[in-house]
């Protein structure tokens, strides 16, 4: 799995995808066994986002400062690419106006 910078998230554009959001504390190794010194606690809350298209997988870690940037990119990705869904027609409200 490739870990990308947030900027590269636009790579997602290519994908009809499955995506995945998970809180992330920055740990990149297993928890130590009993008796070993514990891992240092992380100071910052982060979020791990993974996406999959067939066998291609990408992932990124979002830091606090990058949230806004990612959200904008992600929103436009959703709106732009989930284009197979049905448009629900609004029920006509002015049918008996006259």
């Amino acid at each position, binding site marked *: 799995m490739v870990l990308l910078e947030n900027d590269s998230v636009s790579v997602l554009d290519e994908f009809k995808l*499955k995506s995945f959001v*998970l809180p992330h*504390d920055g740990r990149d190794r297993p928890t130590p066994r009993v008796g070993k010194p514990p891992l240092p606690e992380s100071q910052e*809350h982060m*979020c791990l986002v993974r996406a999959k298209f067939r066998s291609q997988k990408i992932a990124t870690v979002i830091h606090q400062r990058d949230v806004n940037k990612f*959200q904008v990119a992600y929103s436009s990705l*959703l709106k732009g690419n989930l284009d*197979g869904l049905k448009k629900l027609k609004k029920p006509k409200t002015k049918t008996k106006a006259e």
Partner: protein
Amino acid sequence: MTYLKSWEEFEKAAEKLYMQAPSKARYTMKYVHSKNLLSLKMTDDVVCLQFKTEIAQDVRKIDKFVNNLLRHIVSKEH
């Protein structure tokens, strides 16, 4: 686990699930173009909530929800 009927129901339950155990809960979204289907899942490996939709307008609500969730995850206090 079966799918929840309405978006409101899912949103509420998912939020509650996340609040219970913020570090365990994860959220998955799957889009199937050929079936015109978007399915969502929120789980903490004990409880599993699912929701599926075919309606384009729901994407906006989902987007709002995900943004909210992301913001919560990276914010300091849990």
